[in-house]
């Protein structure tokens, strides 16, 4: 479903060149729950950003469903991201000025035929158990609730792949478990493909496959 071929990512300044990813090859199957582990700064998030077309690799190709999307322009990339990916960030990345419902509708605003936006957003919020919080602002929610809203936002557009960057990193263990349960449910009952970056080994072990990273390279343990 999602394939990375010979991905390199180099950050250059005037004096320093930092290699964040070094010749990474990875394939994610449809319906797979994959976790990426590794120490801080090893390039996990960079890899996830490249997978989700939020960042461009210095070299290499990203293929989604057989389509090479590496060279797409801003407009096409945006459209592709909107249809294909749902993102869950460690720090939730909710827009504090908007209500919970408006935050969830966000991906649908950028579709040409989104359907009944509010209805779809309500359904997504029901799925994560937060339909009673629709009119609240993100600042009025607990961390776990905020991450549930972020998950509702990620799934509202029915994307094929959910990319979660340390989704439980800012949550206590109880809330973290709730979020993991939710992700597993999305994977098993909805058949969604999920790629998750995590530090937590026990959470990673619950997934179908673990990929380890060290210094920008995929390693085998």
């Amino acid at each position, binding site marked *: 479903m999602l394939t990375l071929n010979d991905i390199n990512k180099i950050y250059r300044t005037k004096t320093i060149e930092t290699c964040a990813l070094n010749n990474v090859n990875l394939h994610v199957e449809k319906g797979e729950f994959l976790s990426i582990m590794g120490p801080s700064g090893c390039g996990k998030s960079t890899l996830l950003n490249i997978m989700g077309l*939020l*960042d461009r690799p210095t070299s290499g190709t990203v293929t989604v469903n057989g389509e090479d999307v590496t060279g797409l322009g801003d407009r096409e990339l*945006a*459209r592709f*991201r909107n249809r294909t990916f749902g993102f869950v960030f460690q720090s939730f990345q909710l827009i504090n000025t908007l209500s919970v419902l*408006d935050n969830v509708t*966000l991906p649908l605003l*950028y579709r040409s035929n989104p359907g009944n936006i509010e209805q779809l957003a309500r359904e997504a919020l029901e799925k994560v158990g937060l339909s009673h919080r629709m009119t609240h602002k993100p600042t009025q929610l607990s961390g776990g609730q905020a991450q549930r809203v972020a998950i509702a936002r990620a799934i509202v557009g029915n994307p094929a792949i959910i990319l979660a960057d340390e989704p439980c990193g800012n949550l206590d263990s109880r809330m973290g478990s709730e979020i993991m349960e939710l992700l597993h449910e999305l994977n098993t009952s909805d058949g969604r493909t999920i790629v998750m970056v995590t530090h937590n080994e026990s959470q990673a072990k619950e997934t179908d496959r673990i990929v380890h990273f060290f210094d920008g390279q995929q390693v085998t343990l």
Partner: protein
Amino acid sequence: MRTLKNLWHQICRDKLFTAIYIFGTALTLATVTVIAVMMWNKVAPVYPEYQRDNTVYVNSLKTIEKTDNGNMTRQGNLGLSTIKDFIFTLPHHDIATAYIDDWDNHYAQRPDGGRDIELRRKPADPAFFQLFNFKFLAGKPWGQAEFDSGLRVAVLGDRTARKIFGATEPEQLTGRRFTLDFVEYTVCGIVKEGTPTETVSYAGVIIPYTSLSGFNNETLELWGSYCVALRTDDKDGIRRALKEKQERYNSSHDDIEISFFDQPVDSVVLGLSGNTSIEGFNLTDILLAGTASLLVLLLVPALNLSGIIWGRMEGRLPEMGVRKAFGANRSTLLSMVLWENLCLTIAGGIIGFAAAFLMLKFGITDLFVTGNRADESIVTNEMVLSGQIIIFIFLVCCLLNIMSALVPAWRSLRKPIVESLKEN
């Protein structure tokens, strides 16, 4: 609707920014509105000059006398004989009025012996009341008979009448007497007074020029102190006819050459040429200069507002990053930011417009009325609340919005998504 909702959330989040932005915009738009109203009223059909679209003007004449010591050039208003020989005999017009463009100070003496009233005087002929559509509140204009006899009769503007006679009903003023520069006149009519921005028709008192001593005592054959306005449906035809008359005169005189320049000119040329000579007037230059002045006027506030927007966009970077991550492209977001900003600019524009209206009502027109400022300066509602002014102000709002928001919005939207998200 969603843009308005977003905007409302932004306003609630950042009240200080909103207040500063709207105040800054309002200040700029108030200034632009005042200037636009003053300029517009020089060319638009407004009371009592409703026929400006069909009116042309001949104000000046240049002569070049060929003497033994070289050529001597003179320029000035027209003499009565010039008007009779050259202007009144032109084809293609149905009304022609001669009047004195009188910028001297004149004083009316109040019947109660109070302090003299400084006012503007307009000596004219009876056709003046045909060409300019004064609204008579009482009485009627003086006619041909009074004009031919040189009777000292006067039509007063209502504000001037109140100053001279106090708060008296207009109907009770006809037939009453007052002295103008210590010469007694009888009031025959009271009109709704125009505004000093209308330099052709405006006066506190309109009198027959024949009532002035020495009205036809012209020192030189061709010159005097008169101007002419004509109503015509064929501006080019009347211009050609005057040109032909000028050429005929010049070909039959060896010692003197006359020039009416490109007169008769229409109200746009007359209004916009200001105090400069009509000779060499170029509308394109005036419009270019006006546009350049407007841009310069907008530049400073645009730069200030741009700085404020820059700061706000930095604060909104994570939001833009999230929107981009979920499928918004740069142009969609740019358009969203510009629309949001336009709403704020229009809010500032509405406040600025209201402020300009009050400023104009409270006499700021004095700044724009050159010469005699004998009268209180008042603009009418129709002058400010015209569709053209409102459309112009809206366009200026759009321009200011583009000038202030485009660059900061575009630059912040060019930041990579990952960097934008990191700002949170």
